């Protein structure tokens, strides 16, 4: 894990694994009427496969922008973002969508399940866009539901589930297409402390099994689960804490 506002990102000497996501001097500027808002002012950071990171910072520090960029929902104004070796900044909307579909899984604060679909259909959603056939995706959905401990809820609608259960469905959905990176935006923001801990242990487990997990949170309690804690301030990475191993 390296950092530095203007330096080229470089790999820490201790790292043996491959880099899955790498930001190099990334800036993001939003036009705001006549003025511009610099949400990111030159960020360089890289994540190795199987690592976990927590992005922290006060609101307006640029952590959401960073997550959107990491999640291929947005493109940097300048700089490079290499995801699985591909410079995402050059991709068009279609290719970005394809990247999200194959390499990224999202878990949101407000769960963001589609209310009219059942748990099964929600989990199957990425597979639907991947053109999997019905039998295969049904099998995969059951497997994922099993993984998050909701095998008996497949036929329910999101509204019939508790918050913790809904978030676990969201995790199952994020995992369905077997992406390399799981992005979580305040995943426990709408959960009580007990279910928060359950969700965090689920994410830790997934991380232990080799998924790269990057999470935005402002709770230091949760950030403790991550190996790297990126503290952001005014659009740059202020400092990086490494978890006591």
């Amino acid at each position, binding site marked *: 894990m390296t950092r530095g506002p203007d330096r080229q990102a470089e790999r820490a000497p201790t790292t043996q694994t491959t880099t899955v996501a790498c930001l190099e001097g990334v800036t993001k500027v939003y036009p705001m009427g006549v003025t511009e808002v610099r949400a990111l002012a030159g960020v360089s950071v890289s994540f190795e496969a199987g690592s976990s990171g927590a992005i922290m910072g006060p609101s307006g520090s640029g952590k959401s922008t960073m997550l*959107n960029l990491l*999640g291929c*929902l*947005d493109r940097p104004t300048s700089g490079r973002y290499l995801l699985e070796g591909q410079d995402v900044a050059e991709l068009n*909307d*279609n290719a970005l*969508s*394809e*990247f*999200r*579909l*194959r390499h*990224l899984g*999202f878990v*949101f604060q407000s769960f*963001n*399940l*589609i*209310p*009219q679909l059942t748990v099964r259909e929600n989990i199957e*959603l*990425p597979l*639907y*866009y*991947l*053109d999997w*056939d*019905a039998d295969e995706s049904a099998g995969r959905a059951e497997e994922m539901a099993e993984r998050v401990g909701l095998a008996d809820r497949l036929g329910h609608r999101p509204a019939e589930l508790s918050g913790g259960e809904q978030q676990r469905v969201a995790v199952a*959905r994020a995992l369905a*297409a077997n992406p390399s990176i799981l992005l979580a935006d305040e995943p426990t923001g709408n959960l009580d402390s007990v279910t928060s801990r359950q969700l965090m242990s689920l994410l830790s487990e997934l991380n232990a099994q080799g998924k790269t997990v990057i999470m935005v949170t402002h709770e230091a309690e949760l950030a403790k689960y991550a190996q790297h804690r990126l503290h952001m301030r005014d659009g740059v990475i202020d400092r990086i804490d490494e978890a006591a191993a």
Partner: protein
Amino acid sequence: MRRIRLLRNIRLGIKTLMLHKLRSFLTMLGVVFGVGSVVAMLAVGEGASKEALEQIRKLGSTNIIITSIKPAEEESSGARSPFSMLMYGLLYDDERRAREAFDTIERTVPVKIVRQEGRLGERTLELRVMGTTANWFDLVRRRLIAGRTLRPRDGERRASAVVLTEYGARRLLATERTIGQSLRVGGAYYEVVGIVQSESGQGGAIQTPDQNIDAYIPIEVARERYGDYVTEVSAGSLLRESVELHQLIIEVDAIENVEPVAAGLERMLKTYHSKSDYRISVPLALLRQAEATKRTFNVVLGSIAGISLLVGGIGIMNIMLASVTERTREIGIRRAIGAKRRQIISQFLIETVVLSTAGGLIGVTIGLLIPWLIARFAGMPTVVTGYSLVLALGVSTSVGIVFGLYPARHAANLDPIEALRHE
């Protein structure tokens, strides 16, 4: 694979629409009524024009009918001596000249009309006695009910043979057994040789050459017995008229020759007739006219239908736009997961097309029901043509595509980040 996917998308679309059954139904309503009224109106229009065309076709599309008419100026002139004779109308020579002048004329049928009272046993009926030839029955095709029609030999032998119409026969209480009996017409007796179906004559602008009170006899007999003079005694004056032929039906060999021959006949008659005492009617021209009227009618109907479908389409678009706004978050989620723009477009487009096509199907059902009810209870003929159904369904589906495209594109172009934040 693509087909399975499309089916899946359609199923999903239907499922989503079924979540708001009432709203979906109300959204469809515009298209339902649009399509329903198109199909129904076309069926009624088609029925009416088919009836008109049928009537014109009965006149024979290769026929030209020339009728003698009393010239208007003669009738109104008061300075006529009470004993003067009014001579007008078609001449025997006109028939001959026509036949000689045009080799595209296949047959000519002269008709001489005399009003006489017919009597069979106890019953009497005012008849329109038509002195004509055997060819009449070939040119004015009517169904033979009993016996036979006139034959060329009847004319040669000056046979006192008469063919009655079904109506006349019924009025005179003539039956199949009547064939061979004697019918008294004026002062002479005729043998009833046959009974034919007739056109009632009433029913619109088109005057058929036959009427239901006709009695057909050989023209040679009519000429001999009744001559060319008609004397009418009316209050204070004696009206004497001389008409050689009352009607001339000309059959042309081919459809494309009908109009040139009609024009030629017009010129020819103008040369020999100083007064305009004839009228040429060309069923083919009437047919063309009727078809043109029908086309106009269809254009008008089409415009009305177009407007109603437009309104229906706008209704659908309106609801779909509302639906896109309502489901902004869903769109954001789908985009974040990895749905491409065109997949979002197809999702919403399919929903719109499902709506409009379902509306079209319901509309067609209504459109089939209304003509059936009209035919049953109002007695108007209606014809539902296959093409109107295909057209209505095709148009309603296209309405879905056209009016669905904008909301769908709108949905697809939403910024995923913004959409996810939408409450």
